[in-house]
């Protein structure tokens, strides 16, 4: 595994402007991903996971603005790029597996046509015949029959569609794929086989991935590193095993506790009291403090620092969990 960073996100801050005021959806988030590495972003819904995904592709609605920060993709900062430039980087360098695969395909074209158009846009030198061969190979790779290339989306089942979406994401040989809740809409068995498929492909193609999920179990299964998001901020970032064994932030701890473990030791399931904050008026200081069991005085005054706890383990907390 090379140590080169495929993507580096530095101090990313993104806001939505709404009628009622600005919503800070992503606040000062930093992380980087090496080639072949998979980063999992986990958190409750509305914590800014999907906003990060959309910011990485710069696929933002009109009312969203990246206020500051850098998104360095293959050594180039994407944030200042104009739309027309950015367009060329999408899919060829960074592609995405969408949350709602059901509607990710246009109903009036065959799935094959919709993948071909991506290849044609980004790899103009590939002939139509070669593109077709490539798609058939991708279909085999993701476990779809090559004949399905000429079928329309409504002829696919949910699981097949998700596989086709993955094939589409791979079609232009991107360096990094963002998978936003890739399996949430599927039933558990299909979910599992698709996750296995993705991890196998990722290893085989030595690709980087960003997984986004509210499901700790999914994240644990597929990622090498885990970032925990809370209310638009990243509160903890560490290698997967490390974070499961040694959570530092009280929120991470609660999150880990709220999922039952089949293989591990028996433990109490803890439900976190309270609601995530309203991002129109986020709480001062640490955004987690109103719900935090470890709250101390300065939590509602000062924003906690992003501190290195060794072993590539970072956390932002004034009063971390006791180690062990």
């Amino acid at each position, binding site marked *: 595994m090379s140590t080169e960073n495929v993507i580096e996100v530095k101090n990313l801050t993104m806001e939505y402007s709404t009628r009622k005021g600005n919503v800070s959806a992503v606040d000062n988030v930093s992380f980087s991903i090496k080639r072949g590495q998979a980063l999992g972003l986990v958190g409750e819904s509305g914590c800014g996971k999907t906003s990060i995904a959309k910011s990485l592709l710069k*696929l933002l609605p009109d009312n969203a603005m990246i206020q500051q920060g850098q998104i360095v993709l293959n050594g180039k900062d994407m944030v200042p790029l104009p739309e027309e430039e950015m367009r060329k980087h*999408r*899919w*060829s360098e960074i592609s995405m597996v969408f949350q709602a695969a059901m509607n990710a*395909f*246009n109903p009036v074209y065959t799935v094959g046509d919709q993948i071909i158009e991506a290849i044609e*846009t980004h790899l103009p030198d590939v002939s139509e015949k070669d593109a077709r061969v490539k798609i058939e190979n991708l279909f085999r790779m993701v476990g779809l029959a090559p004949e399905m290339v000429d079928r329309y989306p*409504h002829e696919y089942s949910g699981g097949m569609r998700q596989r086709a979406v993955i094939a589409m994401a791979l079609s232009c040989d991107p360096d990094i794929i963002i998978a936003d809740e890739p399996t949430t809409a599927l039933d558990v068995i299909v979910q599992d086989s698709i996750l296995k498929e993705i991890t196998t492909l990722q290893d085989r193609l030595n690709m980087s991935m960003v997984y986004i999920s509210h499901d700790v179990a999914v994240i644990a299964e597929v990622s090498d590193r885990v970032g925990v998001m809370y209310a638009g901020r990243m509160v903890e970032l560490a290698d997967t095993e490390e974070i499961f064994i040694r959570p530092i932030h009280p929120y991470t701890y609660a999150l880990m506790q709220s999922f039952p473990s089949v293989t591990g030791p028996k433990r109490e399931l803890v439900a976190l009291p309270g609601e995530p904050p309203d991002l129109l008026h986020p709480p001062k200081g640490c955004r987690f403090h109103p719900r935090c069991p470890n709250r101390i005085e300065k939590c509602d005054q000062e924003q906690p620092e992003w501190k290195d706890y060794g072993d590539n383990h970072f956390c932002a907390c004034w009063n971390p969990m006791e180690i062990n």
Partner: protein
Amino acid sequence: MWSYIGKRIVQMFITLLLFQIATYILIDLQPGDVTDLLIGNPDITAAERARIAADLGLDGPLPSRIWTYLTNFYTGNLGVSMQQYPRPVSEILMTRLPRTFTLFMAATILSFWLGYIAGKFLAWKRGGAWEYASTITGVTLFTIFTPLLAYILLWLFARQLDSWISDTFGIDFDLPISKFNTPSLWRRAPYDTNTVFSWMNWNFFAIVMIILIALIVSNYIPRRYRPALRIGSVVLSIGGSLIWWAFISGVGLYAWDIVKHLFLPILTLTLISFGGNMLLTRTSMLETLREDYIETARAKGLPEGVIRNRHAARNAVLPVWTALVFSLSNTISGGIITETVFSWPGIGATLVQSVSVSDFAVAMGALTLIGIMTLIGHLIVDIGYVFLDPRIRIH
């Protein structure tokens, strides 16, 4: 798919039969009959009147009269016109049907296409002065009193613009304000108006078919040749036809006369339907732009134009196409008014004119033809939808 179309045709035929029976009963509800016209004539006795009524088949019971009417209709006998006695109704209507058909086809195609283009761009460039201007224009065209619009266009084009052009450039268009042709010109013509007009219609039909076939074929050839074939078919078929009419046919002058008479009615009718089509395309496009596959298309890094035309507009057109069933009847109502205002002798003007002189054989024929045209329109919309939406096509 064919069984679906077959089923639709049978359904429509039954609807048509029911409609004919209903109209017959409606006419029958009117007090008295045609022989009442003879009351004022002192030479005709009551017995004579009864005999005439019997001759005309007016004395039987209602069901048998309906049966006679229907069998006559389907053997091509639509009765005779009382006003232009003894000219058969079928003859009157058949000379006028192609005109009205052309008018509707041209206006429907144009307004659909223009409304689609305008609506597409308006939804894409949201907000601002354009949105206001277009909404106001759309609503105005949709709700303006049709005769008023027709007269405004007449005044604008045939009076103001025509005299402005002849004053400025010395070219005299002589844009006519009514009728189907200029009689003084046609006195020397080698063919009559309907013959030349039918050639024009065949030519128009051929152009539409060539473009349609080119469009279908273009989906099966390599992508980079597609624009050439599509644009080529349009340019060649239209250009070729123009050259033929101007230099080879020998009746270009007469064809031009017909075109001049067609121009304002088609413009009026197009504008009437254009507003509704534009507003509907815009709404539909705005809905489509919120779909997930539009975001997918953006994420794939497709160019703006491709996202707009290939992904958004292609789906946005579906509800607009379905709504054609309703806008069709608007267009036909508009056509009746337009033909009357321009004294342009098509089926619509015939309907109004025959009703106002109580020539009900002609009126019923015209009404039935209008019904048949609407039914054919509905059938075309249904079949077209099957092609436009693969979700229907498969099942």
